[in-house]
């Protein structure tokens, strides 16, 4: 059989295939490295857990709740802080020969700037993914990503400190996601990743617990928002939100994603990313599609209503 070139380059990030883990569903690769049958060298990129300037304990229990075709999480960004990431986690992640993306979160503009400064030129870091879904403590705790100007300010703060490619992870919990995507593109964002979780709650022992909904339940929302943003910006999009099978990847490509991230599906099947990479490759072989452009041509949308 002829070989298939699944590679894709996004803002200088060279990926051997378009499949990567979604931040928060992959730890910092250490646990997946212990999994028989998981070859981290075969992933498109590695992506870290959400990292903050200082270590964070995260939320109290309960933190997760299953819902029909999805789950709600309120982990609260438990993480060891950027210094431990630099000294211990990044060197581990860098050994697999695939690009490493570090996901960063903050509660002030200066947090983002400071983290970018410290991560800039750290060996093994290929790009930063900026989570702007967190509450802005200087701005009434409204998430940074809910306002075009504020979102752009975060990107500018980071851009001023690093030349690394910047992937901005957009929250779907907004009125007009297109205006936010355009605002961050204008100030130097290189890539958009979307969507983060949808705001939801669950009831636990008579208490209402806020969190973010993920899983197959949110896929239609993700497809809708990606298709809108893809038509409004020029920078590439990493699509995510409920991907669990090959057809989902095709659907995300067809609305304009250049690569995809797998999140919640890793929990039900810890080898799902390996499976999807193999399936994507054999699909392309079977249909004699030499590369992803040929694949995208084949699955191109034929209109809509």
């Amino acid at each position: 059989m002829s070989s298939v070139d699944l590679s894709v380059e996004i803002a200088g990030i060279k990926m051997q295939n378009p499949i990567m883990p979604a931040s928060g569903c992959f730890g910092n690769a250490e646990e997946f490295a212990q999994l028989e049958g998981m070859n981290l060298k075969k992933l498109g990129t590695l992506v870290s857990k959400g990292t903050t300037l200082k270590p964070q304990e995260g939320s109290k229990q309960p933190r997760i709740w299953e819902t029909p075709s999805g789950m709600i999480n309120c982990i609260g960004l438990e993480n060891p802080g950027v210094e431990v990431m630099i000294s211990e986690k990044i060197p581990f992640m860098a050994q697999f020969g695939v690009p490493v993306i570090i996901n960063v979160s903050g509660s002030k503009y200066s947090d983002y700037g400071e983290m970018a400064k410290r991560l800039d030129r750290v060996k093994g870091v290929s790009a930063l993914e900026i989570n702007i879904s967190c509450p802005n403590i200087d701005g009434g705790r409204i998430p940074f990503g809910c306002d075009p100007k504020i979102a752009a300010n975060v990107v500018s703060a980071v851009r001023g400190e690093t030349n690394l490619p910047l992937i901005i992870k957009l929250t779907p919990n907004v009125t007009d996601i297109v205006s936010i995507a355009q605002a961050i593109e204008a100030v130097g964002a290189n890539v958009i990743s979307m969507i983060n979780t949808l705001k939801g709650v669950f009831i636990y022992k008579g208490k209402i617990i806020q969190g973010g909904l993920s899983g197959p339940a949110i896929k239609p929302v993700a497809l809708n928002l990606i298709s809108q943003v893809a038509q409004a910006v020029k920078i590439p999009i990493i699509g995510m939100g409920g991907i669990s099978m090959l057809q989902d990847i095709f659907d995300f490509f067809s609305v304009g994603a250049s690569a995809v991230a797998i999140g919640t599906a890793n929990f039900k099947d810890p080898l799902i990313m390996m499976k999807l990479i193999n399936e994507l490759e054999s699909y392309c072989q079977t249909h004699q599609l030499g590369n992803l452009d040929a694949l995208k041509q084949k699955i191109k949308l034929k209109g809509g209503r």
Partner: protein
Amino acid sequence: MEENKVIVLPAEIIKNEQVAKNTWQMTLYPRFDFDVTNTSPGQFVCLEPLASDSVMARPFSISMISTSKSTFKIIYRVVGKNTLLMSKLKNGQTIKLWGPLGNSEIIDSRLYDEVWLIGGGIGIAPLLFFEKVISEYQEHIARVFYGVKDVLEMIPLKVYTPEEVQIATEDGLINFHGLITDLFAQKIISKPAKLLVITCGPNRMMQKVSEICQQYNTECLAILEQVMACGIGVCLGCSIKTTKGMKRVCHDGPIFKAEEVIWNELG
């Protein structure tokens, strides 16, 4: 099998039988290179959820292994759609699982005069594996305490220790009428000098056991349970606060020193 490697594979169901009210026992034969002798008491496996609209892994303690048959057992309560589907699986069918998971500190029972295993409800499952391992040495003494709400939920236990199983039922139909913690509180008065207590069950019960142990200056290990999404330590859904910082029940546990658990933060 490399140490600490987690294996993902389909396991064959050898037996799947009801053992008490709402309670089933499944014997699994994991094919390929899952070595049951490489598992230790307290460890668990995750089963792929059977319901198509479920997204989270289902963790179950290993309750027994058979080295000669290369099989292991889990005991589970039917509490929802996934465990109901599990109870309908027939011999010869397969289910995807991954493991062994969780910390694997080997308890050296030679260091103690006796090891008391205090189980509440389905929490008895991992303690049976402990009991077998301890009782393999003739001079080691394990005592099993087993509490259930009503007698119909009581699993007929097969134990290896010559010591009689101490049973408490809340409905009072047989044996001690009351909570297992009350029975334990009575028995610990005449405890041996060097006693280790291992407990598994509802959080409130384990907390009580832990308090009694502290009162009697007795070492206590608790096998905790939390809802998990992955079981392998990446989602942080099962992280709990301890006196030693945040710990993942799935990866840093499920066995914890009871005195390090901050019980009222378990949710």
